[in-house]
């Protein structure tokens, strides 16, 4: 299976994402630079974390208007799975591929720690490797992870089961409304999440709880991937 990682100036989690995808798929992902206008034919596109364009204007705002994101939007419209992590989530929201916005953390601090996530929908194409309601560990590292959406949007997310992950056990690190940590689009093929599953996929990371997202999206089993 083939994957692609979007590269933008100022991202810093791209190498971690490339390493994770290489470990899980056995193949090095294609990389797509910000100025490119087409994506290779792949099974998963990932927009990784970091601080694209220095978070100028708003986190993800400039990146969301780059040529490569138009190509990502076209791929998403065709049903290609797209995963945005951290800054990638911010970029997908700014690009209009996901609803809502990610604002400055309520406590105004950069948070870099492990949180617990509840898998609130284990039936999306990104979460079938988990049990419904399973609590998983996942690291976070961000300054602007405070998810916000208006009431109508929140109701739509809730009613259509589009909230995939919530911060659990009082570990909400950023004030995100309704403890939202990750959501999918209406079609279910675009997932954005603030936590970093790519940093918890090998036993040497201290756990493998993050693997399930990639394994679900790519349809590989734990045994094959191990």
């Amino acid at each position: 299976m083939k994957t692609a990682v979007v590269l933008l100036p100022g991202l810093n989690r791209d190498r971690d994402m490339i390493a994770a995808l290489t470990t899980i798929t056995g193949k090095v992902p294609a990389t797509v630079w910000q100025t490119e206008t087409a994506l290779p034919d792949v099974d998963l596109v990932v927009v990784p974390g970091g601080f694209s364009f220095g978070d100028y204007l708003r986190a993800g705002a400039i990146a969301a208007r780059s040529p490569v994101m138009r190509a990502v939007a076209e791929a998403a419209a065709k049903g290609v799975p797209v995963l945005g992590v951290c800054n990638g989530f911010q970029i997908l929201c700014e690009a209009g591929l996901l609803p809502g916005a990610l604002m400055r953390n309520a406590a105004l601090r950069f948070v870099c720690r492990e949180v617990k996530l509840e898998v609130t929908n284990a039936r999306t194409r990104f979460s079938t490797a988990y049990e419904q309601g399973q609590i998983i560990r996942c690291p976070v590292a961000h300054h602007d992870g405070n998810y916000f959406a208006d009431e109508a949007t929140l109701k739509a997310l809730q009613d259509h089961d589009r909230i995939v992950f919530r911060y659990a056990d009082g570990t909400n690190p950023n004030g995100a409304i309704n403890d939202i940590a990750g959501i999918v689009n209406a079609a279910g093929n675009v997932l954005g999440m603030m936590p970093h599953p790519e940093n918890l996929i090998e036993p040497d990371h201290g756990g493998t709880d993050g693997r399930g997202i990639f394994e679900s999206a790519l349809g590989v089993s734990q045994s094959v991937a191990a």
Partner: protein
Amino acid sequence: MIKARIIVTLKTGVLDPQGKAIESALSNLGIEGVGQVRQGKVFDVTLEGDDAASAKTRLDAMCEQLLANTVIENYAVEIDHG
């Protein structure tokens, strides 16, 4: 040439932790009677041409497409500022 000023502010009801931190700093300075502080952004833009209507259209487009995130922010456009 047209000069314009765009003011972007957070919508009512959207939490502004930076505004809250500023409120507390003002209080620490001993400035009395400060109610609420809400932080926003100002963009000064110059545009080619002299047609205010055309400028307004372009300014609104830049606000809608980039300068404001209308999920959380409102914007106001002032033309011929200063």
